């Protein structure tokens, strides 16, 4: 029996590959009593019965219950999320070909999509006409549509996007995450939040120990 204090810090979304999910896998666990810390770390939160993959939503209360099952005198202090998602992915052999074909698929959508987007914008805004008129205004002669202004526009365009995205290829201008990476995290966080709100706590196919 020990009256140690256990500090827990869970992440919102934890990916696991083993069927037996222990507390140690899920987040940071600290205690002044090292023996208790190790015991708590090896406590089993659940066993996955699902075949391929599944997501399970837990409350920190489930964790408290498991720890107090070990020793009711332990004080649990939560420093992290109050609800979290355990994302079970079957340890699968990664097929490089399938992974890359997916990436190529998204690349095709983004490549053709951005080409399409800028062409529709140019068309909508009637940029060609605007440039010919502007050329007339400055130079006083008729433009043939292949002038320095179109060329400069075509150079400015990628520069603008590169500046916005803050990098091209491996060459980054600052250590900030790129806008797309920020959006990616925001999106993942929203999905996690939705999953947690969705969960009726009574999942099928799991045992809460």
């Amino acid at each position, binding site marked *: 029996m020990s009256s140690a204090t256990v500090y827990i810090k869970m992440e919102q979304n934890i990916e696991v590959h083993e069927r037996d999910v222990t507390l140690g896998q899920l987040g940071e666990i600290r205690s002044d009593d090292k023996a208790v810390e190790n015991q708590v770390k090896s406590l089993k939160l659940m066993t996955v019965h699902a075949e391929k993959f599944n997501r399970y939503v837990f409350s920190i209360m489930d964790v408290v219950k498991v720890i107090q099952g070990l020793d009711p005198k332990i004080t649990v202090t939560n420093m992290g999320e109050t609800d979290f998602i355990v994302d079970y992915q079957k340890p699968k052999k990664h097929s490089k070909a399938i992974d890359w074909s997916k990436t190529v698929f998204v690349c095709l959508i983004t*490549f053709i999509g951005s080409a399409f987007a*800028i062409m529709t914008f140019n068309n909508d805004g009637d940029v060609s006409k605007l440039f010919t008129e502007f050329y007339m205004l400055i130079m006083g002669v008729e433009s043939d549509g292949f002038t320095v202004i179109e060329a400069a526009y075509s150079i400015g365009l990628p520069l603008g996007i590169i500046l916005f995205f803050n990098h091209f290829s491996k060459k980054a201008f600052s250590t900030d995450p790129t806008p797309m990476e920020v959006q990616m995290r*925001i999106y993942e966080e929203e999905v996690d939040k939705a999953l947690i709100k969705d969960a009726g706590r009574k999942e099928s196919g799991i045992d809460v120990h």
Partner: protein
Amino acid sequence: MFIKQLILAAVGLAAGGIISAGVFAFITIIGLVPRLAARTKTAKHVRLYEDIIVLGATAGNLTFFYHFPIFGGAVMGVVFGLFSGIFVGCLIMSLAETLDTVPTISRRIKLAVGLQYIILSIGLGKCVGSLLYFWYGMAG
């Protein structure tokens, strides 16, 4: 004369920079690429997708102004049509989602069942609309 050319170049460069940053900031904030990356579990390649956007926009813009001949004939047509279709479809739904269209309407009419059929209807509606648009030459 040289000064005037310089003015034109400066205007072109600035216009290109601002417009592209604007157009692609829109696409980024709408969250289209993050959704595609999440769905295909390729989030680690997000930077590659950004590079591809730069290349795609540049290529599209050059084709727009300089009318490059593109090889591949009908096959290329199908590829371009299909993927720009996927892109616009995703863009429209991302836009609708960002603006909370579906949640708002389903709440307004107290929708209880069949959300998936509404989503399906949106997809089919877009398909029919697109076909009608091209079939009857509504582009004007």
